[in-house]
């Protein structure tokens, strides 16, 4: 199978045509030899995006999302690789569940799925999960995401044991003894009478993990940072040479807790939307390199889990189909960061932290790519999403960066029908 994409701009290159042969980037060949010639109409070819933090809900919660529907959403968002968090039912804390996820992902065939295993059995902070056996089955990291690794003692064991297998540890940062609210604690939570979750809950855990990482000299990756204080500590730790990396999400630089004023549960997630001061700090940290990755924390929920009282609603929003456009519109277009930096955040850095080996666009590399229209504004509509979830706060937003086409190993995984 030979494919040509012509009339395109190519990221980090002056080429205007891409040649794909047998699923790999190839040298030039003639249009006559091609099985398909795609006219990109001036759109931009980017390396396939990598999202190291998604929730696909299968096994166990297929009514929210399946691996197949999540994969379709990923492809539509321009992603060719995603890492799935282990808070499924049963929990992905053993090799059998890992194998099951990989099998389903292969059947769907729309995105590379790299499972993340639980750090503790049952996502508890009591006994280590079988990290070695799960690595053999295919995990690329461990995390108890959804929950923090609750005690310092257990976190130390997870870091040490995972290091034996060269498996990165990703931690959801939240001190449960001071957390417990349904939104950010501050003037908005006080005004609308919702119990708040303080930034201190996140900052205390980030501080602990930096201390352990430095003490043990073992890398740690901080999930979805939302606070000014957390980012400041990560920045300082990096400057000292601590092996700490971190991620944030598009909602933390586009939204604040004032969006919760009308109790709309599509603005409820964990960590919660913070203050304007935190939002600006997230942008600053994206700009200065403190943030390594932008992830979606894609968390589909059924409407029955969201159309309820604010405090009862489950945490999380979907994100795969809006992430790139939000990043492009709010970070690259206004000139806060370059497209090169965005590709570090959305492709190269997550790939290197988890050693996925993705993002290559040289001859012989797997043709994982996405074609983005960066010129024309489009309206993001929730009813056009491919995820089963409808829990997005971005319905109706006008954005730039609509996906035209996504290919994984030269195979079309998404194509916008014109």
């Amino acid at each position, binding site marked *: 199978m030979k494919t040509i994409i012509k009339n395109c701009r190519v990221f980090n290159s002056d080429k205007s045509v891409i040649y794909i042969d047998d699923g790999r980037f190839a040298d030039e060949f003639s249009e006559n030899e091609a099985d398909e010639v795609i006219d990109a109409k001036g759109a931009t070819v980017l390396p396939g995006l990598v999202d190291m933090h998604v929730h696909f809900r299968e096994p166990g919660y297929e009514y929210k999302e399946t691996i197949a529907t999540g994969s379709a959403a990923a492809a539509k968002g321009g992603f060719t690789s995603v890492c799935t968090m282990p808070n499924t039912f049963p929990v992905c804390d053993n090799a059998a569940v890992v194998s099951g996820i990989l099998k389903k992902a292969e059947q769907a065939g729309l995105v590379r799925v790299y499972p993340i295993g639980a750090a503790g059995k049952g996502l508890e902070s009591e006994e280590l999960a079988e990290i070695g056996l799960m690595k053999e089955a295919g995990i690329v990291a461990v995390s108890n995401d959804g929950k923090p690794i609750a005690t310092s003692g257990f976190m130390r064991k997870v870091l040490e044991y995972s290091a034996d297998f060269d498996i990165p540890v990703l931690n959801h940062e939240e001190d449960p003894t001071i957390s417990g609210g349904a939104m950010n604690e*501050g*003037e908005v939570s*006080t*005004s609308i*009478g*919702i119990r708040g979750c*303080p930034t201190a809950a996140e900052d205390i855990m980030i501080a602990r993990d930096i201390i352990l990482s430095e003490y043990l000299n073992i890398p740690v990756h901080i999930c979805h940072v939302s606070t000014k204080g957390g980012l400041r500590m990560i920045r300082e730790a990096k400057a000292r040479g601590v092996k700490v990396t971190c991620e944030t999400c598009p909602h933390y630089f586009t939204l604040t807790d004032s969006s919760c004023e009308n109790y709309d549960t599509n603005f409820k997630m964990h960590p919660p939307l913070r203050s304007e001061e935190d939002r600006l700090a997230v942008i600053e940290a994206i700009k200065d390199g403190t943030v390594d990755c932008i992830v979606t924390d894609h968390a589909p929920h059924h409407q029955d889990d969201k*159309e*309820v009282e604010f405090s009862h609603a489950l945490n999380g929003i979907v994100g795969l189909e809006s992430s790139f456009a939000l990043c492009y519109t709010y970070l690259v277009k206004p000139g806060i960061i370059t497209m090169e930096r965005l590709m570090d955040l959305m492709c190269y850095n997550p790939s290197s932290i988890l050693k996925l080996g993705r993002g290559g666009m040289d001859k012989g590399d797997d043709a994982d790519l996405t074609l983005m229209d960066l010129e024309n504004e489009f309206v993001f509509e929730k009813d056009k999403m491919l995820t089963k979830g409808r829990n997005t706060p971005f319905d109706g937003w006008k954005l730039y960066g609509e996906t035209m086409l996504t290919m994984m190993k030269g195979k079309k995984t998404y194509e916008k029908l014109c």
Partner: protein
Amino acid sequence: MGLKSKDLLGMKQLTPEEIMEILDTAKTMKLVISSANKKTSHLQGKSVVTLFYENSTRTRLSFELASKYMGSASANISATGSSVAKGESLLDTARTIDSMGTDIIIMRHPQSGAPHSIADKLKASIVNAGDGMNEHPTQALLDMLTMYERFDKFEGKNIAICGDIYHSRVVRSNAIGLAKLGAKVSVYGPRTMMPIGIEKMGVRVASSVEDCVKDADAVMGLRVQLERMKSSLFPSVAEYAKFYAITPEALKLAKPDAFLMHPGPCNHGVELPTAVYDCEQSVINEQVTNGVAVRMAVLYLLMARRNNL
């Protein structure tokens, strides 16, 4: 005449003019309550349902009497002994009540924002009778009516509120409503029960009961829930009574004609010494009467809005 919105969700949603209209109407309604024949036809042919997900004696009774005095058909639903207990969602329950032709649903719910989350989806008017820690607008309105009967304007008046500020929807509604009419609210309570950022709501956080009450035109005590001790918000009743109660000595620091309010039910000897509860300045029993009057006014004005449409 009438309210702008279909619902009364909170003081946040009312304009100063609407608040004054409710208070003026309530003054008229109070005449009905004190008359021998407590009957008007303001809600004739209307149906009113109270939907309470939390126990309440006085608020519920107050609403029931208000709607009965005005001639409405009324029914009551409690969270226990109904489909609510069988796990039906709030929205489904509310839609069912709505479909039966209900004009007004009076709702109390332990979750903040619960009435807001259903109001737009129903034809009936929703009256918030207390949602979680958010608002209790008719309580604030009855408190304000009690004040309004004693001073002709709110502007520049000092209102002191002492107690568990964090969990109190009464404080939130009063702070918002009083600020809209130009009064100055001071609050005081244990720091463990003082929500972060409360100053941003336009209230002053005092440094002691005395500081809070000093020069006040009206003083309000709040019920402290004794189970808060278990969550380490205060150590004991004795300690609370000693450091946070409104004592007779503290009350002397208020303006000479100041009066004392409490939304009830009161823990005697905890937030208020019994001597204070029963003191000359106490208007606590009158607040109860005013509660019925204010609720009559609210129900009437919500229906008057409909007739205007």
